[in-house]
């Protein structure tokens, strides 16, 4: 059976600059994969192509065995692929609850509702009427993840969710992961924090200069292998 989401020989360009050189990644239902790599390795680019913010040849990205490469972002989210952008990017003039409703407005049926989400992140229920700007960094990240979950995705892409947050806050965010995974949602996390990534992921892909240099389960990979794949040493 075909994987839930798969890329085959995926390339990406910014104008004349090539950022990805033939990426093969596959993920199944309920699986969590982590993508690690240095700055400029192409991790964020990879997520931006999948969620439709960057163009691709149709057949290079397949979701539920259909070619979706190059579809506009608003159609990809409607298919069930949601993205948590780096830097949270909450809508500043909408309240916390309105931000969450933007996810529901996509119109996909599924397990996630405001009530369910407020059980996962109770602090958001308390701050539902607040402006996102008044939230702490961790709370903003919860709202951003919550907004993505409200689209009831079967694939959740998370770009640097722990960036700039205190370790205790990061642990709190990652504590929500099992509840999301329990719904069968596949999760792709892009992380700078290798330890965090190795802890949560079923499989790890290491990117360097737009190519996959290493892949495997966290247990099977040695520190030396990862260092070599990460820094090219």
């Amino acid at each position, binding site marked *: 059976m075909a994987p839930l989401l798969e890329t085959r020989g995926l390339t990406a360009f910014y104008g004349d600059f090539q950022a990805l050189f033939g990426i093969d990644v596959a993920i199944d239902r309920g699986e969590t994969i982590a993508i690690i790599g240095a700055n400029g390795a192409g991790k964020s680019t990879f997520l931006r192509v999948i*969620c*439709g*913010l960057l163009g691709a040849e149709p057949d290079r990205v397949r979701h539920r065995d259909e070619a979706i490469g190059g579809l*506009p*972002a*608003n159609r990809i*989210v*409607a298919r069930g692929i*949601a*993205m948590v*952008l780096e830097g949270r*990017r*909450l*809508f*500043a*003039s*909408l309240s916390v609850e*309105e931000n969450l*409703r*933007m*996810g529901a*407005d*996509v*119109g996909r049926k599924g397990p996630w509702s405001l009530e369910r989400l407020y059980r996962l992140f109770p602090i958001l229920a308390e701050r539902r009427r607040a*402006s996102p*700007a008044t939230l702490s960094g961790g709370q903003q990240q919860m709202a951003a993840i919550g*907004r993505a979950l409200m*689209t009831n995705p079967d694939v959740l892409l998370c770009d640097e969710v722990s960036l700039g947050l205190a370790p205790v806050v990061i642990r709190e965010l990652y504590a929500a992961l099992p509840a999301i995974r329990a719904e069968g949602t596949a999760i792709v996390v892009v992380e700078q924090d290798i330890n965090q990534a190795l802890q949560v992921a079923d499989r790890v892909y290491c990117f360097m200069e737009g190519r996959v240099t290493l892949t495997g389960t966290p247990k099977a990979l040695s520190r030396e292998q990862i260092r070599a794949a990460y820094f090219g040493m």
Partner: protein
Amino acid sequence: MTAALDTVLQGTLLGGLYALFAAGLSLIFGIMRLVNIAHGDLIVLAAYVALVAVQASGIGPIESLVIVVPVMFAVGYGLQRGLLNSTLDRGILPPLLVTFGLSIIIQNALLEGFSADSRKLQAGALEIASLRLGPDLAVGWFPLLIFLTAVAVIAGLQVLLYRTRVGRAFRAVSDDPEAARLYGVDNRHLFALAMALALAVVSIAAVFLAVRTNFDPAVGPARLLFAFEAVIIGGLGSLWGTLAGGVILGVAQSVGAKIDPAWQLLAGHVAFLLVLVLRPRGLFPRAVD
């Protein structure tokens, strides 16, 4: 004293018309950061659509809105989708110069189609009926109708923006167009809807303008300037501020005209420049920028 009150009252009611001119401009800027130089000419275009509708069907000007509003709604949608969307995200020059070119094209097309003669729509008894407020004080029903419509339109837009799903999408796109796409928003469609909505409001303003005064193909730019001044006086991003800005502009013009008819426009511009110097962010700026 009564004379002064009368001047302020007439100016306030005139401000309602300016607020109607300005609401569309304000909406468009708020949602897609587009400053539409052709806004005034689109008002005049809508007035001619009303003229054609009235002449062809024999209905009254107010009733003609049933035709003008949908026509301008469609024009707005098509204009944004077919032309203006491609000017966005390319720096300041393309939207500015394309809408400027559009302004000149509309003016000259109207000149070609309708000549430079001035026109007016007749609303019969409504134009002269007035409401007596005191021994020497009366307001025309028609200016009052314009003002109340302006309040209703702005209240309606507020409800749309803050209480509906499409309004939520409008505000989201305004905050972060890229993130909005990730939440199912088709920006190009939404921008086209915003322009359509703006031109629907413009239609109402246009019919009132056409009943109130003479118009010809060249009066658009002045309407753009009034709308612009109302928006800046009120403060960017605030629709109620735009209404207040329209009223301040109307009162300033009315007071100027009272002193010397030739000073009407000048007084309005001077009020605008004063606000610009003293309160560059306008009188009622939105708290969150």
